[in-house]
Structures are given as structure tokens and as C-alpha cells.
């Protein structure tokens, strides 16, 4: 008698791979993931334009949401982390935050429930973008001192440079972009796998157990609802952390070590 005994999880490819819908076979093929990215971009544009078209002194509705988002990024991330003179980076950081948040939140929207950020393409691209921007800003602002300040941090005994310099080099050029991308990817991937496993367990328990034993499906079902609430938090937190780390690297590039 199978309670939850003979349940097997489908291969990972099956829950992350989508067939091409449009322009099949060309490099511009569009699948579900790409379609979701396009829809999210349009939604962000609509929200921002709708909220700032007829600005009133007393904000209401959409304008309120837009202003709150702007203030959250401007005060909480740009001014606090990058620096008080870095107001010109708010548009970049705000776009980054909204883009990741809108992509992550697909994970819990009923009927879709797939975060495009759980495919390496998007986090990978965003990480490379951040990588290029902080390196360019760093070398532009501090010149060659940006590199030497990192590789030979002041206040370290000379003999220790043998150990410190390679570590700092790997940290600056490899670990930073790699961990940015992997952090976002792995969090969304783990959430998607968890939700899939719990939903499939519920369906399995309902379809394979006779009569009263179907009650066992209540367990994974309730757990699933809890995990969905948790995933909303994770979607927001990962967007916040990605933006925050970008801001930290930017601040590091703008101002030499304190």
C-alpha cells in the first residue's frame, strides 16, 4: 500500500526546461522564460510611467507605490551604502531592484509559478553587468590605486602579502561576480524545487491512496502554503540583497578604503 512510499521526483531538466514558442531554431528563439522577462519589463515600464505621469503634491494610488519604491532605494541603499554624493546611481540600482523583484515574484503567481531567475542566463547577465560597472567606476575614479588598494591593503605586515594578495585578487575578480550570480540562481532554484516537490507529493498522495488514507495529502498541502509565504519573503530579500551588494561594490569603487 503506497502512502508516500513509491514517490519519485522528476529529473531536474523536466522542471526547468521549456520548449521554444516563437522563432524556433534561430538564435532569437523565445521560450516561456524569455516571454516572462519581456512581460515583466513592460509591467515595470507601465508602473513607473503610470505613477509619474500626472504627479500631484498629495500622492495617491500608483504614485504612492512608485514614490515609496524610489525612497526605499534612494535612502536605504544608495545614500546609506554607496554614499551621500552618489544620487546619480539611484536609477541604476532602482531598475536592478525592480527587475529582479518582478522576475522573482513569478515564482508564487498561481498558474505560472516559475521564476525566470532560476535559469543561469538572467542572474549571470546581471552579475556580469555589475562586474563591468564596478570595475569601470573603480578604475575611473581611483585609477590604478583601485587595484593596488585592494591587492596590498594598508596595515598588513609585509610578509603576509604572500598570502593576502592572491586571496584578494581572486575575491575581486572571480568570487564577487560568481557569488552574485550563484546566490540569486540557487535561492530561486531551491524554492522552485521545494514547491514542485511538495505539490507533486500532494497530488501523489491524493491519486495513489484509497479512501480515508487520502487524508495524508493534508500534510504536504499545508506545508506548501507555508513555503509559498516564505518564498514571497525570499523573492523580495534576494532582490534586495543583489541590489545591496551591487551598491557595496560601487561604494567600494567610488571611495578608497576607509
Amino acid at each position: 500500500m503506497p502512502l508516500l512510499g513509491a514517490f519519485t521526483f522528476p529529473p531536474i531538466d523536466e522542471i526547468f526546461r521549456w520548449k521554444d514558442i516563437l522563432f524556433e531554431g534561430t538564435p532569437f528563439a523565445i521560450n516561456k522564460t524569455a516571454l516572462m522577462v519581456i512581460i515583466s519589463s513592460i509591467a515595470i515600464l507601465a508602473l513607473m510611467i503610470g505613477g509619474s505621469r500626472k504627479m500631484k503634491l498629495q500622492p495617491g494610488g500608483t504614485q504612492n507605490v512608485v514614490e515609496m519604491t524610489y525612497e526605499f532605494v534612494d535612502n536605504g541603499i544608495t545614500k546609506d551604502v554607496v554614499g551621500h554624493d552618489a544620487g546619480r546611481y539611484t536609477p541604476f540600482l532602482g531598475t536592478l531592484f525592480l527587475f529582479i523583484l518582478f522576475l522573482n515574484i513569478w515564482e508564487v503567481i498561481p498558474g505560472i509559478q516559475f521564476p525566470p531567475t532560476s535559469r543561469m542566463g538572467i542572474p549571470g547577465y546581471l552579475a556580469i553587468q555589475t562586474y563591468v560597472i564596478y570595475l569601470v567606476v573603480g578604475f575611473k575614479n581611483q585609477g590604478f590605486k583601485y587595484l593596488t588598494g585592494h591587492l596590498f591593503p594598508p596595515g598588513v605586515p609585509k610578509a603576509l602579502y604572500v598570502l593576502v594578495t592572491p586571496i584578494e585578487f581572486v575575491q575581486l575578480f572571480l568570487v564577487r561576480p560568481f557569488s552574485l550570480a550563484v546566490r540569486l540562481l540557487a535561492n530561486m532554484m531551491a524554492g522552485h524545487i521545494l514547491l514542485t516537490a511538495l505539490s507533486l507529493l500532494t497530488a501523489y498522495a491524493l491519486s495513489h491512496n484509497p479512501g480515508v488514507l487520502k487524508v495524508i495529502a493534508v500534510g504536504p498541502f499545508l506545508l506548501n502554503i507555508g513555503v509559498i509565504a516564505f518564498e514571497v519573503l525570499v523573492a523580495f530579500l534576494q532582490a534586495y540583497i543583489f541590489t545591496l551588494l551591487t551598491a557595496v561594490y560601487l561604494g567600494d569603487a567610488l571611495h578608497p578604503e576607509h
Partner: protein
Amino acid sequence: MSTLLLAAQQAGELKDGLQSIGAGIVYGAAAIGPGIGIGLVVGNAIQAMARQPEMQGTIRTTMFLGIAFTEALALFGFVLFFLAKS
């Protein structure tokens, strides 16, 4: 002939099983350190917030930063888990 086939099949199964065990150990071992680390970070952040509630905003931002850096190791383990399994 048939015994040879059987032996080959068993070897494949053995490889699959060992791979699964290895993948499990990879993730389990990778989760130990970050688990302790995140506990330390959050615990100390809460203590700091309780002592100086007026610094709450700064402490929370720094706490998330600390968590993000510590968590990265566990997530590398998570990715290695899939690499080791396939």
C-alpha cells in the same frame, strides 16, 4: 554472457548509488559552516539591536550583508550537489 551483463549492470548501479551518496555528503558538509555562521551573525545583530534600538536600520542592513556573504558558501554546495549528481 548473461552474468557479464548482470555484472556490468550492477557496476552501473553501484556508481549511481555512490554518486548519490557523494552528492548528499557534499551538500550536508557545505551547510554546516554557513549554518553556524548565519546563527552568529543574526544572534549578534539582535543583541546589538536590543542594546541600541536607535541604530536598528544600519544594523539590519549590515546583518543582511553578513548573511549574504556567509550564505554564499552553502549555495556553492547546493550547486555542487547538482553537479555531483549528474
